[in-house]
């Protein structure tokens, strides 16, 4: 494998390994949207988009562009053979009802208990939540993909979220450019180092308390 220099690509490639054949997966905006490039051609993973499609395909060519066919970020998509369309109430019934296996999404903060804040910044507008709350509460597994710090260098894995919460104790896995963390019995565990990082590197950019239990 060639070395991956871009941290977002590294995170997406690692997060892709958390998805398994046959699973129904909902990908959020940002890094999660880079994941399909790392899934390989025949992964048997079914992508769900909450605006009403199971079976999202690759980006369309210019000839395939269809104004009636978009994802939750309102970007053009295609639908694969075997895809189905449904209304928004059905779509969220699938999510809340536990029929979507995995939600992969970005976050502003994740706390050491698995609380997540990913929809609003205090002091800025708090007027767009979309499907974020439904997804983190409803999906069977919640994978957060995020750069470990804000642009100004503050840790995003924190003791307590200070931003408005999306949900409490909802996160299962966090993939950053340095590490993979898992929540086990409500506690944060560092299970894997990425991109040549050391535990000390991770510690410098992590405010949350965690234990280390490196796999392999």
């Amino acid at each position, binding site marked *: 494998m060639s070395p991956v220099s871009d941290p977002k690509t590294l995170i997406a490639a690692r997060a892709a390994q958390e998805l398994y054949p046959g699973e129904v997966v909902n990908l959020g905006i940002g890094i999660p949207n880079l994941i399909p490039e790392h899934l390989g051609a025949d992964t048997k993973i079914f992508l769900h988009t909450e605006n009403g499609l199971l079976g999202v395909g690759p980006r369309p060519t210019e000839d395939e562009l269809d104004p009636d066919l978009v994802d939750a970020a309102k970007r053009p998509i295609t639908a694969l053979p075997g895809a189905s369309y449904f209304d*928004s109430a059905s779509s969220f019934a699938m999510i809340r009802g536990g029929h979507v296996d995995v939600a992969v999404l970005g976050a502003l903060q994740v706390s050491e208990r698995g609380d997540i804040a990913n929809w609003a910044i205090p002091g800025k*507008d708090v007027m*767009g939540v979309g*499907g974020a709350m439904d997804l983190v509460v409803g999906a069977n597994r919640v994978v957060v993909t995020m750069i470990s710090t804000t642009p100004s260098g503050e840790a995003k894995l924190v003791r307590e979220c200070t931003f408005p919460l999306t949900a409490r104790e909802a996160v299962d896995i966090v993939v950053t450019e340095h590490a993979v963390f898992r929540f086990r019995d409500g506690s944060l565990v560092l299970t894997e180092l990425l991109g040549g990082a050391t535990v000390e590197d991770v510690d410098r950019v992590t405010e949350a308390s965690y234990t280390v239990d490196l796999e392999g």
Partner: protein
Amino acid sequence: MTATGLITAREAVRLIKTGDTVMVGGFGLVGAPLTLIDALADHSDATDLTVISNNIGEPGKGLGKLLRQGRIRRGISSFFTSNPEAVAAVNAGEMEATLLPQGTFAEAIRAGGAGIGGFFTPVAAGTLLAEGKEERLIDGVPHVLESPIRADVALVFAARADTLGNLWYRHTARNFNPLMATAARIAIAEAGEIVPAGELEPESIVTPHLYVDYLVARP
């Protein structure tokens, strides 16, 4: 109502009165009844409206037009942020905003159309969006009581209708449209194409005509 009337967009928007609550289908502009929205902006004086729609259009487009005219008193949405002018209007005190998680928003409309008086959902429990709402532990999990949503008038879009008012939607342009068609006193469907009754396969009809009061042909 079973005898769905075919009317013009101008006639349709006359059914909307000042102070009304209006539901508008579409995910952003995808599947939005743009002919009806334009007619409402250009050929109606109805103001002081409560608008129920996932987004308040885009700047100057769709419901964004109505917003610029200052005719939306209150918006109920899951994502005002897609129109920065809507956010600005709320911050300036020109519009009230009720924000709901998208699944709660959809389910509340479904409940409104289905005669359900409310429902408990785990979504938003313990967050800002649950403030002031009744919470209850169900099987040990905090749930929030949400109320149904109904409107005076629903404006929806369907790619195809038949002359009875049965509706068929295309791709992801379906979204909130079938739900909203059920949840208003008057449901007006804008159709991309209107075919004789009997030409839509009965199994492919998503909205049966009993929900639809008026049809408007998209030009």
